[in-house]
């Protein structure tokens, strides 16, 4: 059972101390990712099956030297599709790695704040996750682990372009910093265009919950740096934290206030309908669930409903996804059975 490799039902980066209505109800989590390639191997697109296998063994052997007792390495090509889906739903691996081919793996810490993917688009993709706005803390840990890895592995680097990556969009620092934002009021007021425009002006990217190439689900967005070359890691982090983020946070808070003062009935209607559907529906798709859970989260953050904690909501966001539902049910469920079981789980937890 793959979940035995973790400490708790919800990763530490998703656990919350009850927020008092500050920006932490908007910034769900922070993430820092470093892309690295091992110097004397071809990049993934030119690596043979044997080289991919060798990269996994080499990484597993070298990462063991870090002496991090709480870090577990697992091969993904031999893992079941169900286990890969579980790791994906917990944000510990990317879609690319879950669906990929050939030898590949991931090292994950028991508290799920660190994951190191092997043979993703680059040989090594190291990511550090934290709950709330903690980019500096994420970077400090990622930097340290990168240093530790460099004691045992030589990474592809050149004096002009920095750390060399398979795709030139990651070259240089190999650093992607992102914050996951919950922006339901901006979405409700139809002001997301302004956020997209502000991000674009500052060369930042904004995408839906699961990152590259997907629609925003449940009003969760990921704001990240677009470019990785020509600025130091600290500058990249500083720019994201100071250039656009405060503006987006202000816009969402302002949108929430405007809803409250101008159209409180609309706000409470959305929250009430969400609660009604989630408490009484018998068949629920993932999309419909995320749509309504988003309003419950907004209602809780704004103090419009009581009895539904942020911790419970975070748990529901995770445990209503398909692989987690099947763990909860302790059996395989076909798509229709999943929708029924999803409604059962929600009714059970929201039985206020």
């Amino acid at each position, binding site marked *: 059972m793959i979940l035995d490799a973790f400490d708790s039902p919800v990763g530490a980066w998703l656990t919350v101390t009850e927020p008092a209505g500050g920006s932490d109800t908007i910034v769900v989590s922070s993430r820092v990712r470093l892309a690295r390639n091992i110097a004397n191997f071809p990049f993934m*697109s030119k690596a043979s099956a044997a080289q991919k296998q060798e990269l996994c063994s080499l990484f597993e052997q070298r990462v063991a030297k870090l002496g991090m007792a709480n870090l577990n390495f697992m091969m993904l090509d031999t893992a079941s599709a169900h286990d890969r889906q579980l790791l994906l739903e917990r944000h510990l691996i990317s879609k690319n790695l879950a669906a990929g081919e050939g030898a590949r793996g991931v090292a994950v810490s028991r508290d799920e704040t660190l994951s190191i993917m092997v043979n993703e*688009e680059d040989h090594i993709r190291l990511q550090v996750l934290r709950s709330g706005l903690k980019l500096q803390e994420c970077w400090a840990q990622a930097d340290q682990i990168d240093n530790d890895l*460099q004691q045992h592995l030589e990474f592809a680097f050149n004096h002009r372009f920095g750390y060399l990556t398979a795709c*030139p969009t990651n*070259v240089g620092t190999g650093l992607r910093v992102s914050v996951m934002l919950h922006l339901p009021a901006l979405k409700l007021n139809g002001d997301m265009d302004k956020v997209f425009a502000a991000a674009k002006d500052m060369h930042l990217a904004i995408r839906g919950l699961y990152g590259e190439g997907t629609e925003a689900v449940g009003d969760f967005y990921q704001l990240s740096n677009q470019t990785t*070359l*020509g600025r130091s890691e600290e500058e990249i982090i500083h720019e994201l934290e100071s250039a656009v983020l405060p503006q987006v946070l202000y816009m969402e808070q302002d949108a929430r206030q405007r809803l409250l003062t101008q159209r409180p009935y609309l706000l409470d209607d959305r929250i009430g309908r969400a609660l009604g559907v989630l408490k009484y529906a018998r068949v629920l798709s993932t999309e419909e669930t995320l749509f309504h859970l988003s309003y419950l989260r907004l209602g809780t953050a704004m103090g419009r409903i009581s009895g539904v904690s942020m911790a419970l909501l975070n748990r529901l966001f995770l445990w209503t996804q398909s692989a987690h539902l099947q763990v909860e049910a302790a059996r395989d469920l076909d798509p229709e059975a999943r929708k029924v079981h999803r409604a059962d789980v929600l009714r059970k937890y929201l039985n206020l």
Partner: protein
Amino acid sequence: MEQCQKCGQPATVHLSEMVSGEFHEIHLCVQHAAEAGLVTIIEESAQMPGDPDAEIAADLPELTEPELTPEDEPACPQCGLTMSEFKHHGMLGCRHDYEHFIEWLLPVIETAQSGQSHHTGKLPRARSPLELETVVLERQQKIATLRQQLQVALAQEAYETAARLRDDLRQIESPGQ
């Protein structure tokens, strides 16, 4: 003027690369550079007659984008990647592609990276025999940063700052003087 290392003719293609912490300078004439796959010579018949831009381009073969045909398209000697392959799926095949295809990649990188083309971030951790390499890298990095600041200063017409940066650059580029 540098001479071609193969035939002694005046060299028009100059490359510097770093191997195991040491800089190597390579100077080649157009013919030998073409043989090494570094440039492609565009046949005169392909040019518009009397077009001055084309003549300038013919004088500067290393600045001209060669025409790519599947048969004679250069491939990376290490991983076999060709630029058509790269254009097709957007992934490079090995670290050497960054040196081998620099002419093609530089505009791609600058477009993807908002005009930037020099790393100014974290350097590889120095391991004792390679400390010298790090010193060289740090110097390179400092030069890159200064050049970048100089460009910004010039663009903003901050000439006093620009003058100071230029002095700094001169000093770091020729430390003996």
